[in-house]
């Protein structure tokens, strides 16, 4: 059944793309508004996955939705604290951002390794079983993951476009000084943005916890894909990140089906070639930092 395989790959790609998009959107949000490039973003994703694992399965057996909320809250809180401690002081300089956030990533990852143990932690699927759509059967957990990811994205866009806080965020991203003249507490908005970006990563971790194995290295591994998506989509464009994320998820899924493990390298090389012709990405412009 060629079409069945195609649909399966499509759903896999969509689910993988959704994870990448959630993380990439958080990163773009932080980069666009606060001009901080966070190489430790993957660690917040890992943190969110651990929170969901412990809250909904290992320690407390809470409802999955409540654990997701706690994932977002925990990762957001950690993000806000790191804003106060580190990001605040390195805003705007690429060199300092790269150095400090890589240091953070190292410390967090080793901390997780020591705190949570080296063994891979797996939790049973929250939504087991299959679902039948238009004659094809899909695993229910993947459909739910895609739906949850979509929900988180919609929430992000709602906050950004419809609420007063979102308006303030957009104002600060355009011109921080003028925004502060209009009564926007710029520092507070920066902290909030970092927290929101990290919370998105935490939610992504929570969504993925029942599907993938939870390990201290999971964030680091997916960060590379997220960075590539960012480059392809344009560094400051949310829409570009979404397009590129879904696209790369698809390419990875189909590539893995037809070429095996080598597909990742092929993707990297193609993207390298793409970036020469269009250094700003699909929807971005060249950003000099």
């Amino acid at each position: 059944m060629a079409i069945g395989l195609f649909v399966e790959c499509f759903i896999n790609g969509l689910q993988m793309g959704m994870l990448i998009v959630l993380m990439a959107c958080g990163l773009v949000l932080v980069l666009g508004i606060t001009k901080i490039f966070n190489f430790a973003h993957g660690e917040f994703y890992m943190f969110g996955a651990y929170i969901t694992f412990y809250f909904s399965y290992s320690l407390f057996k809470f409802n999955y939705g409540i654990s997701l909320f706690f994932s977002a809250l925990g990762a957001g809180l950690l993000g806000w604290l790191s804003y106060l401690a580190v990001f605040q002081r390195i805003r705007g300089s690429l060199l300092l951002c790269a150095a400090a956030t890589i240091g953070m990533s190292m410390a967090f990852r080793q901390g997780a390794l020591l705190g949570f143990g080296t063994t891979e932690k797996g939790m049973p699927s929250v939504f087991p079983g299959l679902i039948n759509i238009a004659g094809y059967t899909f695993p229910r957990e993947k459909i739910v993951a895609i739906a949850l990811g979509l929900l988180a994205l919609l929430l992000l866009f709602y906050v950004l476009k419809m609420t007063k806080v979102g308006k303030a965020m957009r104002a600060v991203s355009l011109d921080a000084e003028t925004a502060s003249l209009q009564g926007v507490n710029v520092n507070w908005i920066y902290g909030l943005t970092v927290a929101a970006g990290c919370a998105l990563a935490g939610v992504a971790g929570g969504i993925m916890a029942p599907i993938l194995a939870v390990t201290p290295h999971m964030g680091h591994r997916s960060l590379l894909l997220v960075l590539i998506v960012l480059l392809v989509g344009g560094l400051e464009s949310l829409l570009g990140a979404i397009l590129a994320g879904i696209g790369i998820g698809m390419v990875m899924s189909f590539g893995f089906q037809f070429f095996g493990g080598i597909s990742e390298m092929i993707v990297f090389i193609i993207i390298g070639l793409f970036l020469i012709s269009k250094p700003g990405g699909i929807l971005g412009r060249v950003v000099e930092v």
Partner: protein
Amino acid sequence: MSLKSNEGRSKQIALCLLLIILILIVAPLTGLVKQYHLHLLIMAGVNTILAISFLMLIAVGRITIGAAAFWGIGAYTSALVVTNLHISYWLALPMAGILTGIIALPVGAIILRTPGMAFVVLTMVVNMVFVETIGHVELLGGWVGLIDIPRPDPIPIPFFGTLKFGGKIPYYYLMLFLLTLTVVVFCALYQSRIGRAWRAIKLNERLAQTLGINVWKYRLLAFVVGSIFAGLIGSFFAHYFQSLEPKQFTVFKSVYIQIYGILGGLDFYIAGGAIGSVIMTFLPELLRGIAEYEPIFSGILLIMLVVFFPGGIMSLAHAGFVAENVALIIKTLKTLPLLNNLRKKG
């Protein structure tokens, strides 16, 4: 007047350097240095060269987190050539450097066209692609790696006899030779017209362009030269360590190279790299008992350095630093009696 004092200072610095080099040359011959410390010194030398080649890109205003990849290319080239083709190590050493340069040329040409942030990420991608390639291709050793890489062949040295690579001491001198070569070449480059162009690019890219400097070409030159020397020391490392595995060349190592540079001071392209890597080679050895906490320590150190101390250690040793502080202290002391007088009057 300032010129004169500058001259005096550079004489002092030259004397200090000579003394350090003399100590480095004589030290292992006295028998006071243990094998273990000799090993650490050799590793410090390797790290110094890596840090210096990392700083060469900093000098043109670019940050790389992929330095370990080119180190690895040199190491694997040399190891594979010597084990498979059975040619002399002394041919493989320059070959490793040249091949690394040949690979770095197209890679650099492609990734240097992208803006700053994309470049950082792409160097990381290059590093990961290198590790994955080595891991997946059985011909290159796979994840298991290469073992039993032969020691360098004995080499006859005039007036000295044949140098056999049995213990650590010959390796130490080979490292010292490579280090000296690197430092001399890099110093010459920084002093020359090319170095001035690099400085102009770092100060202001646009302005340098208006002065007729082809920014991309000069950056490519820095990238390739840095990679060649990373490849050379990679070849040395392969035959010193005698076993290679992809795990040694991950982004983790590249980050450590970055730490060496930042710790020493990013504005001091040679001394900064040397001091940073010596400290970061010896410090983890002190933490041996709590080795699993070492990355946490290093990570926090990196954050602290960046946040509180972005100038690095060398900025403390800056020539004006001591004089300025002494002047400040004297000034404060002078105002003290004045204060006392005021207090008495009040």
